[in-house]
């Protein structure tokens, strides 16, 4: 019983929970707006690049493919450290949150471009031809006919990727962005207790579980479609 008691006060200390609740709520808010910014930047840039790629300009496509490959091959933390610690040497100090949004947004854009593109390539050729045959221009066919179909296919993998990359906002703790994990770590070193870490973990699960549930719902909806 004693052991359990100690375990509970170590990991679930109500007093510490109460004391750090306001800080934690601020951290949650930071995590949420950071994630929102990352998603907005990543999805719009990814979509734009995928559409651009559909025009089939050789040189542009070469750069788009390089961008997508590098974004998918490089660990985000490497990019974060290069920008955060490297640029000040050039007299350019980029604030932590901005570094995080730029890097994660770019990485998400790389993945999103590939996913949208895979969706676009799986739209049957007949659909394109039907669009062109009914007098639509290339851009009109792309936007009105191909994209809606591609988006349906892209949705489930896209949500999975959005979830994975939004979670990476926890990397902000490495460069002093006070999101959930940094609040928890700071509180942990102040209090000498593991309770703030538990609190942080709970906060993350509360914030991101809805996205996990969304992936499940999408999976069920699309289960009979493929």
């Amino acid at each position, binding site marked *: 019983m004693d052991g359990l008691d100690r*375990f509970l006060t*170590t*990991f679930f200390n109500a007093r510490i929970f109460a004391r750090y609740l306001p800080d934690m709520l601020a951290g949650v808010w930071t995590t949420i707006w950071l994630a929102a910014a990352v998603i907005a930047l990543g999805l719009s840039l990814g979509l734009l690049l995928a559409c651009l790629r559909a025009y089939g300009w050789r040189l542009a496509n070469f750069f788009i493919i390089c961008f997508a*490959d*590098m974004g*998918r*091959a*490089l*660990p*985000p*933390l*490497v*990019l974060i*450290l*290069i920008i955060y*610690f*490297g640029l000040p*040497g*050039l007299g350019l100090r980029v604030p932590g949150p901005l570094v995080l949004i730029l890097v994660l947004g770019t990485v998400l854009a790389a993945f999103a471009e*590939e996913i949208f593109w*895979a969706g676009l*390539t*799986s739209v049957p050729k007949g659909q394109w031809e039907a669009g062109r045959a009914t007098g639509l221009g290339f851009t009109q066919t792309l936007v009105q006919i191909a994209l809606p179909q591609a988006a349906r296919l892209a949705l489930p993998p896209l949500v999975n990727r959005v*979830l*994975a990359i939004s*979670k*990476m*906002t*926890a*990397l902000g*703790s*490495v460069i002093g962005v006070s999101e*959930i*994990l940094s609040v*928890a*770590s700071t509180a*942990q070193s102040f209090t000498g*207790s*593991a309770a703030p*870490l*538990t609190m*942080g*973990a709970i906060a*993350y*699960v509360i914030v*991101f*579980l809805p*996205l*996990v*549930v969304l*992936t*499940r719902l999408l999976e069920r909806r699309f289960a009979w479609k493929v």
Partner: protein
Amino acid sequence: MQDFIRLFFNLEVMAQTLPLLMQGLWMTAKLCAAVIGLGLVGGLFLALGALSHRRWLRWPAFALIDFLRALPPLVLLIFIYSGLPFAGLAISPFAAVAVAFFLNNSAYYAEIYRAGIQSVPTGQTEAARACGLTTGQTLAHVVLPQAVRNVLPDLLSNTVEVVKLTSLASVVSLAELLYSANMARSLTYNASPLVLAALVYLVLLWPLVRLVSRYQRRLAA
């Protein structure tokens, strides 16, 4: 421009710190081996749990998978590395990283296996069972080989993610590639070691990323 090259692409600094980085790369390799190996096995068991007819197996498996998918791997790592000592469980950085990422990746591999197993038509299982094979034999010889083949691109792409993920081990001072590079950066006041680390990751992972894209396109066709 010259400053830029001096600070980011300084060949001299790169050459100087290369041995340190190679040591780090070796640690990264060991970490990857541990996490990928454990994750592939753990993921399989989680997937089998999630596909079980028994509710008491299926629900906990799904709950665990979804919990692990909602929790950022870095949070899990910090919790295990800094939190467990409070419970009297001191743990080495390597073990902490291996356990944290094993848990995290088991959930991801489990989802991939599950999709793969579900993609094998039930007729295959029935034919094997009708021939007198046991459940285990049917799984091992008939279902899994087909399942794995069907989700090979996803398995591969998750494995790329594992390699990238191990860079987070630098946060708990495990001397893998990124930690070594960052260490070298603070010693030389120069970002070139970080750029060099990025190049190493790129050389290792670019071919795999290309392969994933190629594969996925072939499947779509």
